């Protein structure tokens, strides 16, 4: 069920839970940007910072890593693709395929970056209530007169609300089809179609039901919203995060490419 996605809010009272959402959104933006360009030295610094954050908020790291196992499979693919497709000095030669030194290096770098960015996102999502994210999105969109901020914010939070539902329905549908022997069909396109069509239909149906239920509870766009207020701690955290990012770029700039 909802356990299927590790990306959901976990109640708590840590520093990160209390942080103003707008600041947290800025943090993920700058950290992700810095992380995308980082090399090994600065990646280690960033990893160290992130792990301290994880320890400070008593994040259940073990269970999270277990839930992220599909993501690790994805990372293995990314790594393999990089390792096999980058030209350079061959390290291992196997059945005519070269695994190059540059490819290995590149693969590790890319996977490390991706992993860190996913962890940052995970920290954000699991310490922030959906209603706060919505309020923050609204706040960031309010200076733009031509974007209906409230509507965008609602749409976004509903999409997030629907992710576990879609996962659950996908699992249920695929189990039901396996129970009726769909695995005997070897054609993956056939199987995908048989899974996708009912899944899309069911998702639309539950979206429709949700819309009716929201209407029955007087849904309007003009509603009470969470007040966002920044404290001194938020500004201090912003300062620290910016320092961290400057440090990261500095490390890379001054030639420590390894």
């Amino acid at each position, binding site marked *: *069920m*909802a*356990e299927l996605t590790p990306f*959901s*809010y976990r*109640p708590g009272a840590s520093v990160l839970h209390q942080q103003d959402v707008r600041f947290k959104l800025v943090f993920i933006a700058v950290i992700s940007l810095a992380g995308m360009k980082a090399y090994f030295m600065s990646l280690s610094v960033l990893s160290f910072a992130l792990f301290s954050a994880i320890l400070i908020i008593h994040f259940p790291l073990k269970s999270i890593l277990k839930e992220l196992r599909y993501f690790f499979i994805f990372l293995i693919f990314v790594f393999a693709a990089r390792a096999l497709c980058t030209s350079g000095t061959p390290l291992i030669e196997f059945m005519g395929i070269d695994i190059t030194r540059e490819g290995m290096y590149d693969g590790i770098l890319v996977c490390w970056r991706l992993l860190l960015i996913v962890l940052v996102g995970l920290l954000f999502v699991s310490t922030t*209530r*959906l*209603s706060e994210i919505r309020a923050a999105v609204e706040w960031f969109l309010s200076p733009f007169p031509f974007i209906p901020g409230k509507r965008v914010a609602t749409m976004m939070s509903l999409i*997030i*609300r629907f992710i*576990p*539902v879609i996962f659950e329905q996908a699992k249920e549908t695929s189990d039901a089809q396996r129970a009726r022997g769909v695995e005997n069909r070897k054609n993956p396109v056939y199987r995908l179609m048989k899974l996708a069509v009912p899944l899309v239909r069911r998702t639309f149906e*539950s979206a429709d*039901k*949700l819309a*009716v*239920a*929201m*209407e*029955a*509870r*007087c*849904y*309007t766009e*003009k*509603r*009470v*919203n969470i*007040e966002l207020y920044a404290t001194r701690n938020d500004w201090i955290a912003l300062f620290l995060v910016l320092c961290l990012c400057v440090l990261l770029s500095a490390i890379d700039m001054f030639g420590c490419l390894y």
Partner: protein
Amino acid sequence: MNILEIENISHRFSDGALGIDRINLTIREGEFVVIAGRNGSGKTTFLRHLNGLLLPDTGMVRIAGVPVSENIVRARQIVGMVFQDSDSQIVGETVYDDVAFGPENLCLDKSEVKRRVSEALRAVNLEAFADQRPYLLSGGEKRRLAVAGILAMKPRVIVFDEPFSNLDYPGTKQVLNQVLSLHNAGHTILVATHDLEKVIALADRLLIMEDGRVVMDGLPEDIIMKVEAFGVREPCASRLGMKIDSWLN
């Protein structure tokens, strides 16, 4: 006092099917009404007219004297609806957020929202779950969460559409207890079901629907023997000529 006055309402769906057909009814404040009928007899369609989710093609519904079409928000606040599928009613990321959804839509004060949410959660015994994620609740707890979401809007009428579907025996009892205590607190209760056994002992009035019409309307003990002609199972005790005992005993 009549809280609901339904005058000759009919509704035809866009594909031409007749959903409900000339229904006339009045429901007094504080009544406990059970609406029964086979699948597709129009129970859900009828109930959706009570809070303006559907509007009738002809006729009108008045809530405490005011037509629904005149003030739909008021209608939805007075008539709270608990749907058949509790999963698809959940809007919030946590139990607390979900219950707060309704009062927030009514643009109430922040402290008032908070007060109402904790009151509603207390009423359904879910206070301990305020920070829990709703998907992780059991079936009976989910349905009680749906009730709390409605209670936070302070309705006078509470409509339950198939409140016992997918519930086991303890879950059914939890929900039944909830319904009973809401009725005792003065709410008008409407329950649509095709399974009379579980609720009929609590009801003051029984309506039977067939093909979009109300075909029988009266005291449960007067009409319960005739319900099988309309695709509703007569409760066992009634078949055996005994008085129907509540499921709660």
